[in-house]
């Protein structure tokens, strides 16, 4: 009896591992194939029958990826937009989160309901009218919208900060208040320095959003001012106008690296952030 049970258990575990390994292969295959293909000659990519591995890895594709177009310029733009937006959005979201978590005021509960409702409202419904207003104000094809969005905080991040701040013990702020410490100082000098994990999570989410965002720069920015995401959405071309797929793929690999690095650095915090907000990275 006991033996049969353990055999069944072994089988169940065996099945589990089988599924895990198969899923691992399926999930990593597109990434592996992207990297492998980025190391092929264009002619190898186009060959029939299919060649799985390049004869010799073409590291030159990576050099061409950054030399053929002003890759650095586009990357710098994405980076600066990301950093500007992230810095502002983290500060304003944390401030609002602090307000909702730690201060009392008439109307607070109703306003918090608004924050929660904004988590469910389809974002696209707000994006387009906003675009129409910004274009009337002449703010399209400038980077100001990112500054304004940063200043306006984000409901997801407000929610995340609020959840975190409610876990900080009350005694801390009572003590600070008795000491005559103002709310601003309480927030900047006591709450913020004690909130590094949630700040890191929020910063990574915000930065990843701007760096990966394709739609916003597509509609807001002209070709001359656009970001890396939009640039990489179309294939590189050789002087005759033929697409250079493998070089484009090499550029894509470079483009992914900062986000992958950020993910590995802040993994534990990010996964916790996903759980609190339901937000994807």
């Amino acid at each position, binding site marked *: 009896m006991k033996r049969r049970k353990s055999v069944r258990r072994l089988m169940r*575990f065996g099945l589990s591992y089988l599924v895990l390994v198969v899923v691992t292969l399926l999930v990593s295959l597109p990434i592996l194939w992207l990297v492998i293909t980025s190391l092929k000659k264009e002619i190898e990519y186009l060959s029939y*029958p299919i060649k799985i591995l390049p004869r010799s890895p073409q590291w030159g594709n990576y050099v061409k990826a950054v030399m053929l177009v002003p890759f650095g310029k586009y990357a710098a733009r994405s980076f600066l937009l990301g950093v500007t937006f992230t810095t502002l959005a983290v500060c304003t979201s944390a401030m609002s989160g602090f*307000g909702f978590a730690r*201060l009392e005021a008439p109307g607070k509960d109703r306003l918090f309901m608004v924050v929660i409702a904004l988590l469910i409202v389809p974002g696209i419904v707000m994006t387009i*009218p906003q675009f129409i*207003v910004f274009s009337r104000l002449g703010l399209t094809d400038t980077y100001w919208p990112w500054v304004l969005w940063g200043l306006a905080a984000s409901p997801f991040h407000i929610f995340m900060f609020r959840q975190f701040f409610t876990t900080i013990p009350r005694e801390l702020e009572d003590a600070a208040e008795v000491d005559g410490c103002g709310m601003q100082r309480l927030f900047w000098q006591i709450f913020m320095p004690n909130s590094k994990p949630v700040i890191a999570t929020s910063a990574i989410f915000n930065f990843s959003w701007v760096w*990966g965002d394709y739609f916003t720069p597509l509609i807001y920015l002209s070709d001359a001012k656009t970001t890396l995401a939009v640039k990489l959405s179309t294939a590189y071309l050789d002087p005759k106008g033929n697409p250079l797929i493998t070089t484009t793929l090499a550029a894509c690999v470079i483009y992914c690296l900062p986000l992958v690095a950020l993910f590995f650095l802040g993994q534990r915090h990010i996964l916790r952030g996903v759980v609190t907000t339901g937000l994807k990275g």
Partner: protein
Amino acid sequence: MVAVSALARPIAGWRLVRRRRARRTLAFYAFIAPWLLGFVVLTVVPLILGFLTSLTNYDGLNLASLRFLGLANYRRILSDADARFALGRTLLWSAINTPLWLVCSFTLALILNQEVRGRGLFRTLYYLPSVIPAVAAVWAWKIILDRNYGLINGLLSVFQPGTAIPWLSEYALYGVTAIALWSGLGSGMVIFLAGLQGIPEELIEAARIDGAGTGRIFRHITIPLMTPVIFFQLVMALISSFQQFVIPLLLTTSGAQGAVTPRSVYLYMIHTYRQLFTYQRFGYGVALLWVLFVVVMALTVLVFRSASYWVYYEALAEEGRGR
């Protein structure tokens, strides 16, 4: 300490409390001012202006010849065959994508919730695709699904020379589903896993002592306790799949110049996007968006209503108390 002094000197204490309360109210509004201001200026005002736009023939430039059309733009949607087709496609895509994603990410979470070795490693690996930005993800999948040079058709050609299944045109719905599933699997799994780990160990232990098998424990403990999480995930998945259009859009832009979105993934938002940015029909485009909004909200309300039949509320209340 404040409490003690308030007891000792009641009147002065009360004044102190009131002053403190006023100060806190002021502080609250000072702290949320950036968001509140942003909400009014960047959300409420554009929403109102957007609604007004949908009642006109605005195209981005024609302020001089702007005409009030009443509900004509909305009536036009009813007779727009493409819009109806696109809405049908979106419903179909959501009906495939949402359950598939829920089942796959829940199953993975269940497996990883066992005492398997290397759990952290698998979790990291499965989440990794969520980190890859859409543009790169679509490229990675294009070279797998491409009709002539893709990996799948290439491998199939080994057995059946000349296989050229159009994964990115006629069968693009499957292609887009694969990409969306691949990038969404990790975050779904992480949320389910957190939910599973919140199920009290004692409950399962007690059931096992009472002689319940794995299947019964799953049906009578795991599933009911997980219904609030499943509910949350279902709502989020529905809302995001109705807004999906970046993947189909990218599939075409990264292809040949001037390619159009294949009919099989001509989703509602693709239609709206074309009205807005290809034809500059802002009035009509915003009307289409409002219809989408109403459809999504109606579905959300429906799901919320259905919750009382299948979501185990005691678990919700429990969680609420935990917070």
